[in-house]
């Protein structure tokens, strides 16, 4: 059994800093296990969110050694025993306490998205969709709303002034999913341009890199949305598209 030094952020919006805890890790343990051990034995009031502990609910997002990750899917055996491991809250959102942040921005953005507008069913009253027409939508539906992509997005992280009219990568794939839904009939182009602000994304792909579900957020979600907008108002993207042709989406 290995013993690690965990440097965990403790504090409130007013003050705080990293505090060190020495914790033993058993075979196969993940960062969340060690946080729970600290909670049970050394710091009962250490605040963190978690639910499923299986990478399916997206509650335990944190910045581990500076990298946005799920605590429940970060195994301790990727770290060296003699190097301290830092665990900090996701920095983009306002701190509540310790590892817990106020992610209400995301819930506000979710509400703004114009929902599905269904086309009429087939004459027999049923809806039919072919598997190949929903593969891409199903990829976007894998999103566990951990908001790591929102955390790492430069527009949200560094530009308070843009947050009002920028949805962020999580919601770009939500919108893309609706746009590509075979039964949807709604025109969202104005929303995508003016309120979701897809034009502000400069395709650095940081969101895709941190996605624990390996969703191709940029290639399969954001770029098609940009292309859809491009015909109307973005000549640069339009030219690039003409020169390079339609890039084949990532698998």
């Amino acid at each position, binding site marked *: 059994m290995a013993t690690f030094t965990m440097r965990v952020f403790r504090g*409130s919006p007013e003050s705080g800093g990293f505090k060190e805890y020495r914790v033993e890790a058993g075979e196969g343990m993940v960062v969340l296990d060690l946080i729970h051990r600290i909670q049970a034995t050394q710091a009962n009031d250490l605040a963190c969110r*978690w639910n499923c502990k299986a990478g*399916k609910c997206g509650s335990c997002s944190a910045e581990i050694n500076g990298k946005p990750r799920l605590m429940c899917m970060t195994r301790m055996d990727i770290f060296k025993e003699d190097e301290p491991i830092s665990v900090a809250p996701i920095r983009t959102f306002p701190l509540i306490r310790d590892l817990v942040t106020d992610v209400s921005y995301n819930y506000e953005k979710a509400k703004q998205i114009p929902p*599905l507008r269904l086309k009429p069913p087939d004459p027999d009253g049923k809806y039919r969709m072919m598997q190949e027409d929903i593969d891409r939508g199903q990829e976007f539906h894998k999103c566990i709303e951990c908001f790591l992509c929102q955390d790492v997005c430069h527009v949200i992280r560094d530009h308070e002034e843009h947050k009002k009219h920028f949805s962020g990568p999580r919601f770009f794939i939500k919108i893309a999913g609706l746009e590509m839904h075979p039964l949807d009939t709604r025109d969202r182009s104005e929303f995508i341009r003016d309120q979701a602000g897809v034009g502000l994304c400069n395709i650095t792909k940081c969101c895709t890199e941190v996605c624990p579900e390996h969703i191709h957020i940029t290639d399969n979600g954001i770029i098609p949305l940009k292309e859809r907008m491009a015909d109307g108002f973005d000549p640069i993207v339009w030219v690039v598209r003409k020169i390079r042709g339609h890039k084949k989406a990532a698998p």
Partner: protein
Amino acid sequence: MATADYETHEHDVLVIGAGGAGLRAAIEAAAQGASVGLVCKSLLGKAHTVMAEGGIAAAMGNVYPEDNWQVHFRDTMRGGKMLNNWRMAQLHAQEAPDRVLELERYGALFDRTKDGLILQRDFGGHRYARLAHVGDRTGLEMIRTLQYHGIHQGIDVYMECKIERLLKDGDRVGGAFGYWRNTGKFVLFKAKAIVLATGGIGRAWKFTSNSWEYTGDGQSLALWAGADLIDMEFVQFHPTGMVWPLSVRGLLVTEGVRGDGGTLKNNKGERFMFNYIPEFFKGETADNEAEADRWYTDKKNNRRTADLLPRDEVARAINSEVKAGRGTPHGGVFLDIASRRPADYIRKRLPSMYHQFKELAGVDITKEPMEVGPTCHYVMGGVRVDADSTAATIPGLFAAGEAAGGLHGSNRLGGNSLSDLLVFGRRAGLHAALYAKNLGGQIAVNSAQVESIVRDILEPFTRSGSENPYAIQSDLQDTMQTLVGIIRTESELQEALKKIEVLKQRAGKVRVEGGRTYNPAWHTALDLGSLLTVAQCCAMSALERKESRGGHTRDDHPYTDDQWGSVNLVLRERNGSIELRREPLPQMPAELRALFQERK
């Protein structure tokens, strides 16, 4: 504190819990024109429904046109060893297909058949391939669909809010009182009708597939408010949880692995399930490997594989194999799909299982077998409800989903949970809204109730004790795991009840450090009240039922007893103590009874 400081919100209908049942209830109540509040302990979209994997059982007949509600009804009743509330089972089987189609209209993207309809998969105890699904992440699709539909219906969502007690207006329910987890401040909800959709009790066991939220809140809130609980002895141990590494022990491995061709093997490589086919299921279960394997593609001429017997049977079989020394190095059995299906097929059908084993156990399930063993998964019992309206036994209170009892009898079939959430979530929302509409007038809540609740909630900060809330929770989990587990016996159940009593005393001495802002020690301390209550309810009922049936197996009464087969155990709290009564099981009408005579 002289006067408790709290904010107040008022609604026609307050839904507690925002998993599948709670969201569906809130959507329906809002559609009826009611003002709806929806309270959840976590953030919206994180409830345990998100973990459901296999699918939603509904006799849509997209894959097998022979399927219909009568067959689904029969499978459900037989899976529950006939102890189910027949009317709930009937409504469930009849309405599930419409509820699935409704999800599709809300935007859900289920896997498709070749002609573009919703694909259905095989699962334990279901005669036909019946589970509408999205790979092995159906629950995620369901909760996200309901969540995104729900946020446009004018529902007020109160996230990270914990309800501690229901408030009464005379004999009827009039509201609920709780606290915000992120500030520790108090909140009072006035409501004409309340829907409990808080899920299960699995956090009381050590090896569990359940998250921290599953602390029996709804069952306890109902009991403390004077309502009845039913069937609390029946706890489902899902046969296939991960057993290694220890840190993820109990994490669910979907039944879909077996539905898609996986098989259970012991350490000798034997497919042992063929040795455990009970008399009750002999007529419909293949007794040899060849027939079982043919069944996957030809259901008309072959009987179902023994690997897909109902969960209680499979869990007991695994338990016996391990006890007999035929288990794996980490105390489970092997679940092998690698040698039976192509790697591409496995990755397409079971992407989260692939991911889960790869990341957490370092096992590639397309190349190696998984190690699995039983894990506490689901409580069949819960709040006693009227089948049609979901009304509990006190006016104004409704319950749906895992928080309610009756539908699943002594054992739930896989896939029947998600359909339960939709069918009875909708019914709860509908009837709660109608009740609120008919009630008229104002709700009056006696403020003396509030003062005493506030005192209880704040006590862990001020008392002189020194007990650690996490230690008590962990000791309870050990107690339930070892003494109220898959196999039970009188002396151990008595011992469990004594230990629970001691733990209750200790819970009264919990002291927490820190403040009220997002303090998990405080939250854990407060959740102990409901967790200990449901643990006691389970152990009491398990001690009383002297037979083995479904999710209740007694070593000292190993057989199913017809007399017990017509009895429900009902719990209620009077003057601070829990009373247990036997009540006759409602009898189904002749036309439904006839469904069980047609074929064995």
